[in-house]
């Protein structure tokens, strides 16, 4: 047990059995949304209809039309094209942050759970300390001192995200360590890296994948929050958060620019959350056996 024991569920681990009608729909809709957005981001140069920097002042704040699918922003730039390129920024930062967090957290969790003793104690105390900061506060503080930029934003997200993987992987490792097949491998003289990476890790992948999917959504929310506050990638980078935030200057008369940028963020996050919940029902056997029915 970790010392802060009453908190049985790690932060963000939402124990959940979806109502039946939502269960498969979750996975399908989530996959559809995320794949579409990933596709748009990858093929941004093809699907964008306008040059990002092309301004058209007489046509600023025009509504959706055939010429401008989602209308134009305060400089008369095409919102659809900017959103598509914005997806590239959000997704790449989220992906870097999630992969790095998953690797760091998984390593910490594996080592902590497998060796136990003082190693476990020290690693879990460190994890607790990082969990002790309100996440967004720590993200902001890291970006504040390191300055904006793609890698710095990603790094700031890693600082707050790795803990979740560490705690979940540690607890699966604690269980798996006692399983017969692991004991057998040990009896056969397998080295500890072999046991950790060949026996335990493959069987922990389910929860890690679920966390990663939910983590992509969270990372996008935080990245956009940073851009929204003006600490993300500086303009002219077409970040969703910047468009949302800059649009608020014209919110009384022309709310469209802000609304549509926020909608892009929400739909993307919703996609990853649905996917994560769907995957959880599919992949995470512990969650499935928990309910007795």
């Amino acid at each position: 047990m970790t010392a802060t024991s009453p908190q049985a569920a790690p932060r963000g681990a939402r124990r959940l059995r979806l109502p039946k009608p939502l269960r498969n729909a979750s996975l399908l809709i989530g996959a559809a949304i995320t794949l579409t957005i990933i596709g748009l981001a990858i093929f941004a140069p093809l699907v964008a209809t306008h040059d990002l920097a092309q301004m058209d002042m007489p046509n600023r704040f025009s509504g959706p039309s055939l010429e401008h699918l989602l209308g134009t922003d305060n400089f008369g730039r095409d919102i659809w094209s900017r959103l598509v390129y914005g997806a590239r920024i959000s997704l790449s930062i989220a992906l870097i942050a999630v992969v790095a967090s998953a690797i760091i957290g998984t390593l910490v969790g594996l080592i902590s759970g497998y060796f136990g003793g003082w190693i476990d104690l020290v690693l879990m105390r460190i994890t607790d300390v990082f969990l002790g900061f309100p996440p967004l506060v720590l993200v902001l503080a890291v970006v504040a001192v390191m300055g904006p930029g793609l890698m710095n934003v990603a790094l700031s997200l890693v600082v707050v995200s790795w803990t979740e993987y560490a705690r979940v992987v540690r607890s699966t490792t604690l269980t798996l360590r006692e399983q017969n097949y692991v004991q057998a491998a040990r009896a056969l003289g397998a080295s500890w890296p072999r046991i950790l990476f060949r026996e335990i890790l493959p069987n922990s992948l389910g929860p890690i994948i679920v966390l990663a999917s939910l983590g992509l959504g969270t990372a996008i929310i935080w990245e956009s929050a940073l851009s929204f506050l003006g600490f993300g990638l500086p303009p002219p980078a077409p970040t969703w958060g910047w468009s949302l935030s800059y649009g608020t200057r014209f919110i009384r008369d022309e709310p469209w620019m802000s609304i549509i940028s926020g909608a892009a963020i929400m739909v993307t996050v919703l996609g990853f959350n649905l996917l994560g919940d769907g995957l959880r029902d599919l992949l995470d056997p512990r969650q499935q056996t928990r309910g007795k029915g």
Partner: protein
Amino acid sequence: MTDYIIRRLLLFIPMAIGIVVVTFCLLLLIPGDPASVLLGQEATPEGIAALRRTLGLDDPWYVRLGGYFLNLLQGDMGRSIFQNAPVSEIIFDRLGATIELATVALVLAVAVGVTLGVLAANRQGGIIDTFTMLLAQIGISMPVYWLALLLMLAFAVHLGWLPAIGRGEPLPTALAMALTGNPAPLVDSLSHILLPAASLALNSAAIISRLVRTSMLEVLREDFVRTAAAKGIRRGPVIWRHALRNALLPVVSVIGLRFGALLGGAILTETIFAWPGLGQLTISAISQRDIPLIQGIVLTFALIYATVTLLVDLLYAAVDPRIRLR
């Protein structure tokens, strides 16, 4: 119980030390020489040397860390670089507004989240269940800053029912005035806090509703619920009185964790609604790269959060004997 309290209190110490160390390390993260980075392009060598002395950058790191600790123990968080005032004073002026906002949001989130969770669990797979969980999924995916904007557009700009920005009298003051027969400030305060608190609360309400639902579903399968039903107690009291009391236990610890998310989220809501709290201060401190102030704010947020988690753990142990016996 005393045993548990002492053990839990002792754990607070390494935690607090860890938090201070991480906060201190923020200064080490600055690429290059912090003094010249902070002073920017027009820095003179004398200015840099002076700032290095103020920040204590010429000493080895362990001396600085030790000094930082000693000062903190005396309640001294250093001086703000740009406001020429003690960091602790600047923060203290803003603290109340943020705690008020986060607390009201927490109350809203718990009230809404618990109600929806219970309603959803009442008939698993039914229309209410599906609809509520769909709503919760959307609530979880909704960025605070976007929701805040939509609420402001709808209720302040278009309908004009509520003020868009600012804060009334502090709630405790307003409450006291209402008790002495002057309800106007209380109405004003509540109308100001409603939109920021509601937008801040939605995320947590959604998460709490999902937790309560799962927890209720488990409890509703327990024998004592069947016994109560068999005794002829109506469904309503069984759910709201017997089952909910047990289902809320795991939720209590999560509520403490949500407070951390609310404090962080407050930074965003405060910016949008011009709420004069720590969040606004954070943004201005970061824009000016006022490192001592940033450190002070981070430390304050973390210590409030750690204290709330501590209180929740103790409360949890008081309610659930299984915890303190472990």
